[in-house]
């Protein structure tokens, strides 16, 4: 059954039809939430909240990319979550503090990520991943969001604009500036780690 038919059924109150849409989009939705909020628990809460909100406000969807419409709701749910976190900073510091590479604790993403590499490659990759995540988390919210939508979720500019509720021109300039900032942050990480964090050429694109 195609997406439009599922949306039409869901609008009439068919929860099962909506759940098929959820299953089709939940991976991108959760990844977006995870990258914006920076932790698994907040991401799961924001994703669930977003799907519930999407179901209740299905009449607000007026055609176009359903995915972009959905991801915009996820983005807003994440911003709400970040605002809530700012109001209780003690909790958030613990949740987002991933700055100690020597930490022995099992991090949420080690559980979530699926890898089948050698331990050495995996360790190096984890180091690079951590550096990128740290730099990503250091970006202003709207810069981080545009990078996640365009580079991690691989949406085109039009969909990114739809998901952010901004003109395409804004997407283009924000993305360029966000990438430049990331570059500077990663270079600083590389220098700090004595060259351990290298951005290898020929990574999968």
């Amino acid at each position: 059954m195609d997406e439009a038919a599922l949306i039409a059924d869901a609008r009439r109150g068919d929860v099962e039809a909506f759940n098929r849409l959820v299953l089709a989009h939940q991976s991108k939705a959760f990844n977006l939430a995870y990258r914006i909020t920076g932790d698994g628990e907040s991401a799961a809460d924001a994703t669930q909240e977003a799907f519930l909100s999407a179901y209740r406000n299905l009449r607000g969807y007026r055609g176009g990319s359903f995915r972009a419409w959905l991801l915009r709701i996820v983005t807003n749910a994440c911003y709400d979550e970040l605002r809530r976190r700012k109001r209780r900073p003690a909790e958030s510091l613990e949740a987002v503090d991933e700055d100690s590479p020597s930490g022995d604790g099992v991090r949420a993403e080690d559980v979530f990520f699926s890898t089948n590499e050698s331990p050495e490659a995996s360790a190096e990759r984890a180091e690079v991943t951590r550096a990128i995540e740290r730099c990503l988390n250091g970006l202003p919210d709207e810069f981080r969001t545009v990078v996640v939508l365009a580079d991690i979720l691989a949406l085109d500019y039009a969909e990114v604009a739809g998901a952010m509720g901004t003109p395409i021109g804004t997407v283009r300039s924000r993305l360029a500036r966000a990438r430049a900032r990331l570059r500077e942050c990663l270079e600083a990480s590389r220098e700090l780690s004595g060259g351990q964090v290298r951005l290898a050429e020929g990574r999968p694109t």
Partner: protein
Amino acid sequence: LTRLGSLPPRDLERLSAYLDGDLTLQDAKNLEARLGREPDLRQALDELRLVVSAVRGLPEVRVPRNFTLRGADVTRPASKAFPYLSFATVLATALFVLTTGIRTVSSVSLQLGAAAPAVELSAEGQQELFRDAAGTSEPTSEAAAFGEVAPAGATATRTPVGTIVAAPTQGPAGTASAAPAGTSTASSLVYGAETGALGPSDETAGADAVRAARIAPPVDPVVVAQAVLGAGALLLLVLTVRSRRRR
């Protein structure tokens, strides 16, 4: 190291969009020509490409669980007004039932008081009838006369009962219609006796009606107030139902 941040914003945007294949054909050609002769710009593009590929290489995060909705999730929570509305509905309904009950009980006791003499009168009427029947030359059997009278007595006692159930203003109407019926059938002795039996009770009821009409205006304000209360309770019930939990 080229500091990407030190690039003119327009150039940075062009390089970034070029990597995403988002430049028009003409713009891409122009940029490529510049890249051929400007090594700094080329280096900036390489650095940008490295960043983009690093971010794109971030591992995908597996969803910890399914985010499908259950029927219970999509139930809209009850409106904040729901507890107040339900309380008001219960209160209004209770008031309505209570006042209706009080009115019914009081009008029953009132009418029972009025009905008592009517019953006595009808009994007297029956005795009178027996006297008249005994003294008459008409070939009417006592049994037949009694049979005819019995409903008359019942009517006399029933009339007030009728006014209990219906609104008080209906009382006089019921007795008024009984009166001409009795007077118009005065041809036979039995009917005459029946009229005699009904007569006094009609007079009593008629006097009651006149008194009631004098005291109460045409539309009883208590009845109006009660109707408003009933309508209000009904309206509140509708609002309460609308504000409950729903899909």
